[in-house]
């Protein structure tokens, strides 16, 4: 003990610290980019309740179980819950945010493909949680 060289250990520690700093800075930067909501994003109020989703557009139209959006536009969601915790998930667009009673959570995304996508509840909410689904319909108005 005490007579062997310690520089390989210090090189190892240095490499690990440098890697961690890089990963931390990169993650912070990506987080900053994806949390920035575009200014022209349309606001949609999403309400979860046992066991269905309700969507309210900016112009006051309401939809139950179906959400019609336009391809290429940005959408900003305010997520509410009427009873227990739900989680608003559009799997294909990596949208996932809890609906917590007494709180308003927000998330945004911009659909870049037209078609039909699944909306589902991702937080256990009781008897029919397994079937608390909706459909996202992205329409291509430009075509």
């Amino acid at each position: 003990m005490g007579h062997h060289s310690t520089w390989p250990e210090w090189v190892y520690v240095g490499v690990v610290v440098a890697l961690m700093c890089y990963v931390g800075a990169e993650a912070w930067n990506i987080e900053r980019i994806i949390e920035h909501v575009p200014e022209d994003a349309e606001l949609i109020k999403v309400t979860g309740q046992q066991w269905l989703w309700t969507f309210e557009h900016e112009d006051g139209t309401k939809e139950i179980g179906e959400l019609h959006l336009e391809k290429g536009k940005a959408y900003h969601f305010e997520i509410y819950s009427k009873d227990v915790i739900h989680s608003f998930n559009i799997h294909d667009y990596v949208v996932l945010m809890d609906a917590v009673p007494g709180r308003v959570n927000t998330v945004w995304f911009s659909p870049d493909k037209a078609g039909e996508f699944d909306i589902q509840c991702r937080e256990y909410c009781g008897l029919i949680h397994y079937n608390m689904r909706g459909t996202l319909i992205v329409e291509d108005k430009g075509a």
Partner: protein
Amino acid sequence: MVLELQKPRPIWQIMFSTHHTDVGLLYLITSLAFMFMGGALALLLRVELFSPGVQLIADSMTYNRIFTVHGTTLIFLFILPSASAFGNYLVPIMVRYKDMAYPKLNAVAFWMIPPAGALIWLGFADFTWYAYPTYSVISAPGPAADMWIFGLKILGVSSILGAINFVVTIMKCKHPDLPLSKMPLLAWSYLTSSLIILVAVPTFAAALLMLLTDRLGASGFFNPAMGGDPIAYQHLFWFTFHPEVYILVIPAIGFYEILFIRHNTIWT
């Protein structure tokens, strides 16, 4: 070392013993039994999910109850007691003491597990292993949910008693000729995970009480209709269960050292 062969003893002598090897054996048998019970529930779930549509479980509430009791059983009634099993058996030997510091307390900590397991299995609650409010407060059907809360409460007290016993055994009953720096890493790992239990678990014990009084309508800690916040429960819960990961993995790391480094006869 002379190996002493003992005559077979009747089962009740082992059951009512307070000796650390007997209690360790009881912990091991109990945890293995719960492992197979939790595994059987996992098999039911996988059979149901084998293909789309209904295979075995036509009722969604039954399915929800099965995955809840499966998770609860494997985390609280299998992994935790199995760590205690090996710790009880080995730690007193490794610190060269005749038994755990408090043998009766040790037996008490073990005997809290079967009634807690009975409460969890007879109740068969449905609110997942983490029991988030507000579902667990305003929506989860009783008495299953209340039995689950009482079962977990008992298991929490059992872990805290066990942890106190390990800390005192290692810090106070260790042989004077054995310095901490020469103590096997496995004993160190039990000391560390017991200290983590003492810091982390009381928070969940408090959260369970708050959940219970919320369910009774006597308080509204986690119920926004009464001015509470469900996220408060999630903070209290994860204050316990993030460290819980280390409570479970640190003894395993201790075993790694014992099996593959200290007593390595394979790769030398």
